């Protein structure tokens, strides 16, 4: 059933609350060190979003919640993402993508805030992140099952995995590699908001997941571009090191 007015109301609410929240945060923290950012997610936006999670990180640390439990919860939410996409519940799937991304940030914060930070935890977190990302895309494969758009999803999966693999391999060779347009937080934000806004557009204008298809295409292109960016960067660094 189409609900264009309700969908438009929520578009306004999502944009309005985010704009007000960011404005208030930046006014209070104009001089604060905002950390690193990227072209798609500026340092200021990241700092604002991270600040929203601080109460939950503090609560989980006090309750003694282990970071790995949050990582497993992230995988469970990703299974729900897949189920939602497969059932055509695109707005809910987009929301759950953002929620899974939030848990991904939260496990790191809890690990750093408590006594749960360990090499084992970091390793398990990286592996579970790959599973979580893949599981979410499985739902999109089911949603686009009988059409050419499955190819876009497969390319997006490849891009996501190659971005992570390039970094892991580079760091194994001793080259730090946190560069690139489309890192994991950017992928969560693009897919999450692409799904939410795509669902809203579907309620208002109709169409067959046009905006979601565009989002997956952008993920496929930028993901693989980032993997190639990293490959070129590490290749140059290793070449320079071997000729130094």
């Amino acid at each position, binding site marked *: *059933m189409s*609900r264009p007015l*309700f*969908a438009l109301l*929520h578009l306004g609410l*999502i944009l309005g*609350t985010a704009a007000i929240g960011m404005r208030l945060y930046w006014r209070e923290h104009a001089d604060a060190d905002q950390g690193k950012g990227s072209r798609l997610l500026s340092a200021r936006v990241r700092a604002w979003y991270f*600040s*929203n*999670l*601080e*109460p*939950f990180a*503090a*609560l989980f640390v*006090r309750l003694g919640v282990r970071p790995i439990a949050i990582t497993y919860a992230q995988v469970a939410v990703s299974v729900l993402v897949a189920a*939602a996409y497969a059932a*055509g*519940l*695109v*707005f*809910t799937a*987009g*929301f759950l993508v953002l*929620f899974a991304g939030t848990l991904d940030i939260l496990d790191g914060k809890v690990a750093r805030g408590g006594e749960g930070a360990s090499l084992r935890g970091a390793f398990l977190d990286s592996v579970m992140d790959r599973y979580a990302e893949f599981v979410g895309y499985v739902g999109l494969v089911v949603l686009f099952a009988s059409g050419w758009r499955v190819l876009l999803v497969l390319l997006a999966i490849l891009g996501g995995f190659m971005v992570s693999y390039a970094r892991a391999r580079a760091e194994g060779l001793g080259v730090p590699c946190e560069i690139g347009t489309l890192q994991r937080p950017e992928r969560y934000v693009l897919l999450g908001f692409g799904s939410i806004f795509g*669902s*809203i557009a579907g*309620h208002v204008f109709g169409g067959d997941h046009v905006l979601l298809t565009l989002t997956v295409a952008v993920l496929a292109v930028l993901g693989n571009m980032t993997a190639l960016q990293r490959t070129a960067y590490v290749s140059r660094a290793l070449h320079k090191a071997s000729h130094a």
Partner: protein
Amino acid sequence: MPELHGKGWRVLGYFIWMLGAGVVLDSNACGAGGILLVVGGALFGYGTMQSLRGTGAGG
């Protein structure tokens, strides 16, 4: 849960509200979606009130 005062309740309310919006937009379960919208809205309002009264932690 003193950690959630102000901003924490607001963020939790927002998340529940968004989940309710998803239920309403994606399905015909308007009743369940409506309940989530009301609970989310109430928590968001509660957190905002705490922040405005100055009792919020970082709110």
